[in-house]
């Protein structure tokens, strides 16, 4: 079951690359949070009530509810137009993300040869997710999409940590989730400020500081 969830995360990356609407990005982030919960719960060393609660807080609460809703609120509040402005056409993006998926699995394929310390399927998809996150950050113009790309990157990292099959102490996991959430929260606040100060959302607007 968790394997299917991981594969569906891969499919959601494809959808993210082709869609042109911000709401779809948010829906996909929500979906990825739920899928990550399924992957994590399926791989938990001990299925106790507390461990499920902790995983649920990390994935469902933070990744799937609070952050997407906060981003949605930011979009509504700043009246950001709902189309994703990109330097590449949707077709090229889809093509590149397909290449990224292939690359991710190629890496997993190579890593599976030596004594596999990482679960190859998760490893491949997590590499793809991280690269897709970077791709979204690099090729989309709006600042809010950069935050979403960052979240995709973080989801990839979460999956990667699951593929290592070693759990960090509870306090570290909680700290990581808190950091990511607060990071997104602050970035959202900055977007509000940029809206009030610059009245635009283009990346071009924040490139005045340079030498």
């Amino acid at each position: 079951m968790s394997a299917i969830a991981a594969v569906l995360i891969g499919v959601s990356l494809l959808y993210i690359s082709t869609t042109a609407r911000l709401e779809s990005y948010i829906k996909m982030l929500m979906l990825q949070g739920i899928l990550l919960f399924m992957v994590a719960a399926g791989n938990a060393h001990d299925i106790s009530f507390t461990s499920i609660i902790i995983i649920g807080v990390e994935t469902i609460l933070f990744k799937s509810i609070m952050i997407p809703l906060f981003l949605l609120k930011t979009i509504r509040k700043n009246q950001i137009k709902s189309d994703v402005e990109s330097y590449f056409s949707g077709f090229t993006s889809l093509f590149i993300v397909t290449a990224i998926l292939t690359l991710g699995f190629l890496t997993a394929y190579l890593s599976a040869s030596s004594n596999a310390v990482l679960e190859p399927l998760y490893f491949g998809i997590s590499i793809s997710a991280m690269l897709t996150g970077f791709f979204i950050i690099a090729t989309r113009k709006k600042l809010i999409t950069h935050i979403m790309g960052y979240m995709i990157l973080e989801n990839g990292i979460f999956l990667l940590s699951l593929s290592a099959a070693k759990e960090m102490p509870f306090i570290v996991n909680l700290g990581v989730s808190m950091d990511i959430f607060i990071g997104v929260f602050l970035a959202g606040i900055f977007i509000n400020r940029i809206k009030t100060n610059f009245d635009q959302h283009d990346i071009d607007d924040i490139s005045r500081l340079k030498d």
Partner: protein
Amino acid sequence: MKEIILKYAVFGIYIIIFPFIYIGLINKLKNIWCGRKGAPVFQPFYDFVKLIRKTEVISSKTTYIFFFAPVASFVAVIFAALVVPGPYGISIISFDGDYIFFAYLLSLSKFVSIAGAMDTASSFEGMGAAREASFTSFVEPAYMMLLTTIVYATGFLSFQQILFVIQGSTGWSFITGAPIIVALFIMLLSEGSRIPLDDPKTHLELTMIHEVMVLDNSGMSLALINYTSGLKMCVISSIIASVLIPQETVGYRYILLFFAIIAGTALIVGVIESVFARVKMSHVPRFVFTMVSVAIFVMAISFLKIFRGVI
């Protein structure tokens, strides 16, 4: 003997009746979603009968190609339906490499309908034919990539066998099932010319893709074309059903599950048509290309199984 007759009978009923029900279900659901009562589910069948009883108007500028195109398309799809595992989980015709045969039958059906449209020498139909040919051109490579990967991973060469393997619950077949269904569903939407690729209910020739190709058809040939498009969707849905049904299912349960899944896909298509708008014309190839991407994804996963044996 009796069993075989029963099998053929069920298959025959399925192939004759279900295309109408399929389209009927989609329309019914769309209507209900809009708050209307909607035509009965069998309405496409009544339409079919009505159309058959009408005389056909044939443009004097057309040749025999126009006349034969719907028939040839119909026959090709019927054959395609025979290759795919039906309500019993077995195909009527099954041989090594039949999945390639299937692909080319679908292509043939598309080719003759394009040829028929071109034959009318109408500029609208030429436009529709060009759109249909270019927009759906990605379906075939994606389909071939998908099926070749599966064939390579399973080691079997006919639909019936490879789908049987996929029905199993071992790691690989379980994992790849989800993206395979996604890819097949995109294929279903594009072959059936449904929203979000093409709107069957549009009334402006300029925005039509598939519908504009059949503007000059009437009577018997229009009836055949309608039936053929329903059958196409049914056939692809039955592949989806064969992927989804667990291996252990046998007997009447299999049949019930099979019909339920086909009806389910019809309902999903209806929901999609109700809640989604059609994508921009220029975005249609991208949507179809998603199928290629998913196929590559399946291939990447399968590589791990084939060469590393890790899944």
